[in-house]
């Protein structure tokens, strides 16, 4: 059961990291710098990833503790709710008929709609993880080999986004409502 939790946490973290990589890819493939709400959704995705990573890091001492699972689930759900708030707001901003939406759609849906689906799925997965603690007790298990690479990948994508958002915002505190260029290079 403990190993199942580690597999689920690793999968959860990597799905979120890959969503962030995909958002980064779309930013450069479509040549569309992310809007302020898009960046906030990325921040929420990073916060969501801290939940499963907390569980993986906590297991480095060789024990999967129910307390760590509960804390990780709580972190994931709280961050997911923030993401739902940000993405729902953006969906509602473009809900009028004939509104083209912001940015290019991917597989028929805009990125903020995909984000809303991702946040809801993340909350459901974390809730399921918490329900599963009914069958879990503190258990010693060999250190999980994917912890370091998962935490490093998350740190790397966060740093990449810091560089990207500084390039986009330039020396301003906030981003323009509809960014079209990177203000650090072309003020």
């Amino acid at each position, binding site marked *: 059961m403990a190993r199942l939790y580690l597999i689920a946490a690793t999968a959860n973290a990597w799905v979120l990291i890959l969503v962030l990589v995909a958002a980064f890819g779309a930013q450069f493939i479509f040549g569309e710098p992310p809007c302020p709400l898009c960046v906030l959704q990325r921040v929420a995705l990073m916060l969501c990833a*801290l939940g499963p990573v907390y569980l993986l890091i906590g297991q480095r001492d060789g024990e999967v503790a129910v307390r760590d699972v509960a804390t990780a689930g709580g*972190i994931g759900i709280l961050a997911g709710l923030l993401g739902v708030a940000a993405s729902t707001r953006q969906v509602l901003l473009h809900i009028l008929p004939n509104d083209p939406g912001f940015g290019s759609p991917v597989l028929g849906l805009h990125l903020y709609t995909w984000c809303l689906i991702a946040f809801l799925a993340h909350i459901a997965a974390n809730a399921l993880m918490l329900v599963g603690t009914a069958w879990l007790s503190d258990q010693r298990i060999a250190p999980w080999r994917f912890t370091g690479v998962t935490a490093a990948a998350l740190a790397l994508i966060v740093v990449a986004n810091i560089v990207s958002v500084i390039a986009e915002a330039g020396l301003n505190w906030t981003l323009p409502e509809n960014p079209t260029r990177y203000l650090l290079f072309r003020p």
Partner: protein
Amino acid sequence: MLYAAFMLAILIVLGAMWWGYRASVPLFLLTLVAVAAFLVSDMTTPIRLSF
């Protein structure tokens, strides 16, 4: 810069988790509240509903 500060805070929380500081969870909550407060304060554009 503000968005970069939020992301930097996430990086700090991740570092605190990695090095086992007990403050990692309070730091996470602080970051979450800061981002949520910014989101709420930034809701200046009225939402248009079609129904």
